[in-house]
């Protein structure tokens, strides 16, 4: 266990979270993250949100693909040879 000048103690047997600084509680048994925790939570929240958005969009697209009534593109139309009637 290493002691920092500021009074915050970095735990060497803390959970393997790189750069995580912990404070030794008064009971000496509890480790509490005091730094980087808010950034870590924000990143995870963003990733979860992105994954949720992708899943939601995929589900919506799949529903449109399966249930949509857009039909197939026109199979006729455009220019075609003129069929002149008989005289």
């Amino acid at each position: 266990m290493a002691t920092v000048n500021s009074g915050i103690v970095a735990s060497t047997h803390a959970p393997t979270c790189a750069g995580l600084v912990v404070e030794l509680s008064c009971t000496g048994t509890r480790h509490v993250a005091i730094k980087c925790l808010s950034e870590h939570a924000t990143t995870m929240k963003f990733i979860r949100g992105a994954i949720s958005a992708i899943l939601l969009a995929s589900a919506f697209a799949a529903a449109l693909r399966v249930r949509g009534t857009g039909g197939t593109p026109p199979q006729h139309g455009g220019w075609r040879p003129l069929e002149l009637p008989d005289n």
Partner: protein
Amino acid sequence: MKRIALVGNGVTGKRIAKRLDLIAPDCDVVVVDPRGTLAEAADCNVAVVANGGPQIGPAAKLLAHGVSVVCTSDDLGDVRALSELHEPAVQHGASVVVGAGMSPGLTGLLARYLVEQLHHCDEIHLAVHGTAGPACARQHHKALAGRAVGVHNGLQIERPAGSGRELCWFPEPVGAYDCYRGELASPMLLHELFPNVHRISARVSANRRDRFTARLPMLSPPHREGGVGAVRVEVRGANSSGERLTLVAGVAELVGTCAAATAAAFTGAIVRGDLDPGVTVAGDDRLNTIGLLREVERLGVRLQEFTGIPHAANPASASTQTMMNGPRHG
């Protein structure tokens, strides 16, 4: 043996010569210089005038000898002068076909064919893309600088050429081109043929350089022949039940080939004696329009129609494009 005089030996004239063998296999074709006296054409049965300049001079000379004339001119003043040859033509018992090229000519035939499918026709709109030989290119250049004739609310009007841009879709491989009003003869002729049609317009494709330099001399000599040209005829009206209909037909082909096929088809009609003495315009209701269009097709021009989106309510009329609230023409 029929003798047919060919006045003018440019891009269109050469193609006409090739097609005359198909129209009248045993005919004798006499190529005549339009700058001469045309004396060698005096004993011909028919003369096809396909020279680049004004055609009123050669046509009047030939008519004086009693020779029927097929004119391919598309110059407004020239066509107007040719239309006034009716009396001399009747006196000599000869026929004069005015506007036997691509436009006027094939456009008139297509317009008549489409209008006949409608119960009531309100509007006819033409668009032309491309040129044949150098003389045709000069005429195209001139057309963008003059006064465009049109019909609006049944009255003949004039608008500045080069105005009225509209994106027109031609048959493939030409596709879409911006087209502008031009000093073209077709609206004037169509107005005589379809006096009840409220709106008639004719446009010609052009790019920015064409429009910018239209009132200047041609800055560079024209090509020997333009590329694939196209024509598009759109008629609007109603069927017998009052449903609004828009019918579109067109052609994508070398302009010289279109003009030659049309001129040769009219020449064949004169050789067979199908035309009355006097002036005849392509699209005239006295003509066998279907027969002439068939002849044009036989001579190498593929006619096409725009079918648009199929009409679900009436699959039988899938060949008829129904467009509501279509673009405005004028």
